[in-house]
């Protein structure tokens, strides 16, 4: 019973408000990812849950306890820092046992708990090493091990993979996912990388400028974004957007000669809109026109075509690896209207 509840949580530094009244419910055992571009407040919000930043107003509950004013050590949380934050003069075992030692646990019990965490993370052969003798991935695992040892109600991860190289990042992502399955504790994870968010989260919280843009399961955000920001942020390569307008009750998109009918109620005439289509839902019509294929990147299993419209807009289209397209062709595009999205260009809100 240790979900996390944020009620109208606000953070100000002097006169500058960086978190604008956030309400959020994280279920017990849930893997919740805060994602957003840098400066969106995701790290600040997590540090407020940890107690490392004061909460200006509002309340934070962990389980049934209001922890808003509690010291970090009394909140039942443990955190993995971006920089690992391992103590360089202590061995791996000492680092992992340090929290328990501070809390006055007997030595035998500390040793036992450290051994258990080391087993889970396959760190046994490294226990007597100093952090500087470890690789980046091993340090990361020790940092995670240190949190496991403390047996917290809530695990906090602050961009834990951002100092690892691409390959290791994928491995550690899988390892963290397995860990969550194994331990089943509530976890909050901060990242700017939407791929990490998509692959790890039960629930994604998309933040921008200190406000929640949308909360939901990964594929719900991918399939059913509430606004242009979420649509553009989730998914890789990013969704393509084509500007247009509602004219005489019909949709007019500058880059497209004809616009297939979308199954939604259009707003008033003159409303400026954007049509959004993901690269994987666009097809290239080699006999069509209106677009120029600048470059095709063939990755083997998949190819990406970089197009620009006669009207200037740029598009990316994902096609299969055996594509026989070549650079500098004139092409058209087609798409299934059921997989297109429409957004109000002013407010960014999705039109449904």
């Amino acid at each position, binding site marked *: 019973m240790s979900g996390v509840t944020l009620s109208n949580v606000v953070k100000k530094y002097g006169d500058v408000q960086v978190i604008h009244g956030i309400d959020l419910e994280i279920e017990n055992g849930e893997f919740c990812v805060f994602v957003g571009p840098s400066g969106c407040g995701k790290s600040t919000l997590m540090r407020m849950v*940890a*107690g*490392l930043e004061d909460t200006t107003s509002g309340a934070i509950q962990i389980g049934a306890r209001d922890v808003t004013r509690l*010291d*970090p*050590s*009394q909140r039942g*949380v*443990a*955190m993995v*820092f*971006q*920089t*690992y*934050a391992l*103590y*360089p*003069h202590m061995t791996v075992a000492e680092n992992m046992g*340090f*929290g328990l030692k*501070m*809390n006055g646990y007997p030595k035998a019990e500390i040793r036992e708990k450290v051994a258990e965490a080391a087993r889970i993370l396959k760190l046994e052969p490294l226990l007597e090493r100093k952090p500087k003798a470890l690789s980046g991935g091993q340090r990361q695992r020790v940092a995670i091990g240190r949190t496991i040892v*403390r047996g917290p109600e809530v695990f906090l991860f602050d961009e834990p993979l951002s100092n690892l190289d691409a390959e290791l990042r994928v491995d550690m992502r899988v390892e963290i996912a397995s860990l969550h399955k194994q331990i089943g504790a509530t976890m909050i994870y901060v990242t700017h990388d939407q791929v990490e968010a998509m692959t790890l989260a039960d629930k994604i919280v998309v933040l921008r400028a200190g406000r929640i843009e949308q909360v939901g399961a990964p594929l719900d955000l991918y399939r059913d974004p509430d606004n242009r920001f979420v649509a553009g942020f989730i998914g890789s390569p990013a969704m393509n957007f084509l500007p247009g307008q509602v004219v005489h009750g019909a949709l007019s998109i500058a880059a497209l000669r004809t616009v297939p009918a979308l199954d939604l109620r259009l707003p008033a005439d003159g409303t400026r809109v954007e049509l959004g289509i993901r690269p994987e839902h666009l097809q290239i019509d080699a006999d069509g026109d209106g677009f120029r294929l600048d470059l095709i990147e063939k990755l083997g299993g998949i190819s990406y075509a970089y197009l620009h419209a006669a009207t200037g807009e740029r598009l990316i289209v994902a096609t299969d690896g055996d594509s026989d397209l070549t650079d500098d062709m004139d092409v058209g595009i087609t798409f299934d209207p059921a997989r297109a999205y429409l957004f109000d260009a002013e407010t960014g809100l999705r039109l449904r």
Partner: protein
Amino acid sequence: MQRLNVAPLRALLALTVALAIWQAVVWLTGVPRFILPGPGRVAAALWDNAALLAEHARFTVANLLTGLVAGVALGVATALNLALSPGARLMLRPMLIFAQAVPVFALAPVLTLWLGYGAASKIVIVMLVIYFPVTSAFFDGLIRLPPALSDMAQMMRATPVRRLFLLQVPHALPALASGLRLAVVYAPFAVIIGEWVGSSRGLGHLMLLANGRGQTELMFAALFVLAGMSLALFAALERLLRTRLA
């Protein structure tokens, strides 16, 4: 400053080359011995005046080491206290600026005035000269614990005192080491200056005495004993740091 950390063999080589050049200069220029005696004559003076040099050196070394130990102890204690009390930085800063921009050495005459021509004024000048760099270096090391390490400690219920001794002190040891290196470089300066300003014993006194009496060989011999003392002190510290901090 990194360069100092060098194998003794290299230093010995450098010394040999320097001696050779020196001898060559003396031979080639035919400079009179009361201006620049050759290495051989200086060695002879060293040998002939061994007892005299040893007596004066004992006085100098005793003051040097006493002042060094006291200055380091006082500096370490100050830094620890400052690290525990918030707002300490603000207090320390003007002190350090003053101490670094104004030559503390220049207080030597004042100290002889206050403490007389004996050992006390020398010990205090060494302490004073050492105190500021050691305090400053160690305190800097203590408060520069990376923020994440400090946050981590806060999450683990580490009290300020425990945090200081279990985390900040180990983290500040390299900074303390640089402070100590400065200290052992400064300390011989300080003790000799203390003797020059006013003393009836010590190597510095002997140098001025020999200079005044035209005993150039003896002055150079004293200078060599002093240089040897400095090098030995430095080498001893390096050995200590290597075994303790490695």
